[in-house]
């Protein structure tokens, strides 16, 4: 009785990760890619060659059984409409007169296990190239990209059925606009850290979060950075007495960065908290329960008095 429960618990992480039937989703980061459904400027740039792993679980057409074949990954700019097979497959070629762009991305993913699930790594710039070939990374505003995984079973041997028999689909968002540069209002000193306060730009798209950079004066690359929400935040891990140029960059929901704010130079400094200050002033408190037994004894005395009072009340 206990063993099946234990085995089920062991399998739980895998179950949680499993894709719902008919769904394809990005799963993990290629270092720079946040696990979200955005393709941002960085991920759009072919020179950056950002790759993302997708996982899918295809839904088979009625009457179809799972078997060996290939999965093909498609992307398009228009929402696919349901076809005669009952599933909404992506277009496999451009229909330029009607403004529909869509093609296969990458090569076939072989499915020799007879599964409906699979995974594969796709380059994000290629997804954009097939769905928005004329605009690429200059498209304005947030636009949808529809992605599909078509399942093509083998007909005989490794001959692929040209007609797809199963589908997994999902939606990504291509977002190439960035917020305006924030204005860095002030930088406060802390112990091995600096506090930046800024005002977000009133132009451009809204900023979702901010990244604070501290660059040691004279260095070409930032020494360290920290992320923050709102209008203030700390950058930690600095060396007291060393001057740093602090700047702030705003980021959109997709992660597109604004130009850097103005820089303010400041140095972290060692500081006393209240307890340090109290001790240095010669304070007598020693921390802990300094009075020793006085407090607990008083408590016992009160308890004894109460017990005596209650005893007198009883007949």
């Amino acid at each position, binding site marked *: 009785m206990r063993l099946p429960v234990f085995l089920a618990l062991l399998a739980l992480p895998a179950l949680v990760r499993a894709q719902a039937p008919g769904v394809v989703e990005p799963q993990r980061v290629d270092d720079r890619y946040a696990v979200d459904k955005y393709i941002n400027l960085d991920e759009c740039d072919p020179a950056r060659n950002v790759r993302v792993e997708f996982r899918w679980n295809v839904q088979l057409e009625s009457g179809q059984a799972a078997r060996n074949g290939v999965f093909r990954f498609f992307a398009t700019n228009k929402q696919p409409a349901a076809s005669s097979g009952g599933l909404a497959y992506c277009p496999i070629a451009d229909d330029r007169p009607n403004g529909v762009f869509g093609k296969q991305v990458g090569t076939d993913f072989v499915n020799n296990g007879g599964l409906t699930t699979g995974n594969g790594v796709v380059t994000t710039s290629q997804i954009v190239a097939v769905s928005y070939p004329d605009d690429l990374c200059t498209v304005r505003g947030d636009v949808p990209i529809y992605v599909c995984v078509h399942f093509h079973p083998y007909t005989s041997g490794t001959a692929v059925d040209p007609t797809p028999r199963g589908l997994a689909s999902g939606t990504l968002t291509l977002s190439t606009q960035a917020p305006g540069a924030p204005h860095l209002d002030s930088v406060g*000193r802390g112990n091995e850290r600096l506090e930046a306060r800024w005002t977000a730009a009133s132009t451009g798209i809204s900023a979702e979060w901010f990244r604070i950079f501290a660059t040691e004066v004279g260095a070409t690359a930032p020494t360290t950075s920290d992320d923050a929400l709102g209008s203030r935040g700390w950058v930690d891990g600095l060396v007291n007495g060393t001057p740093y140029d602090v700047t702030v960059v705003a980021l959109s929901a997709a992660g597109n960065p604004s130009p850097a704010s103005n820089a303010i130079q400041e140095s972290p400094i060692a500081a006393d908290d209240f307890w340090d200050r109290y001790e240095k002033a010669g304070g007598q408190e020693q921390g802990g329960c300094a009075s*020793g037994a006085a407090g607990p004894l008083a*408590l016992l005395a009160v308890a004894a008095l109460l017990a005596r009072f209650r005893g007198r009340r009883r007949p």
Partner: protein
Amino acid sequence: MRTKLAAALAAAVVAASSSAAPTESPRKGSFEVGAGPYRPSIDSEFPGSAGPYEEIFGGGQPWGFRLHLARALYTTFGALEVGFKTGFWQDKGREIALDGTRTADETALRIVPTSLTLTYRFDWLSVRYGIPFALYGRGALERYNWWVTDRDKTAEKGATWGWSATGGAAFLLDFVDRGLARDLDNDSGINDSWIFFDVTTDQIDDFGSSKSWDLSSKGFTYTVGLMFVY
């Protein structure tokens, strides 16, 4: 004008006393929520100059809140109650750099006071005649559990014992709407709802220990809040 007001008040008191419900539930104790300003006398150790407390936190008196739960020992002529009180208070300031300037780093003194209390509340006039006022006195054994933070980390912590004495006055809110008060008693067992104001003097220094700081309030402190007798 004054005569009219007095007559109206007298009439209301008479009406209230005549309509006092004999079907009240038994009085078992009371529950209080209150708030008031507080400033510890830590700097009293450093006479003649601004002490570390004032240096870091300035001269303010932040507000703290408190909860008090008490059990009645005696309810014949007024109420004698033993209870437990706790709450939370904190003061925040900026750390001071070694060159004497203030930094952006935050430091705080936080206190969770806990008290064992003995309260006598003279509410007999309210119970017997419906006069909506009560006076009370309270003695307490105090233990202030405190900790100092450096940014978000605890720099030091401890506990300081002491005592306090409180005197207060309360106004019976049931007087405003007796029907509602009766419904509240029927539904939840709360006999009376009071709004109170009290004044406290205390000595929180581990009973004069030479190893403790003085968390006694600077002068008298006052608290306002609501009290429910159940």
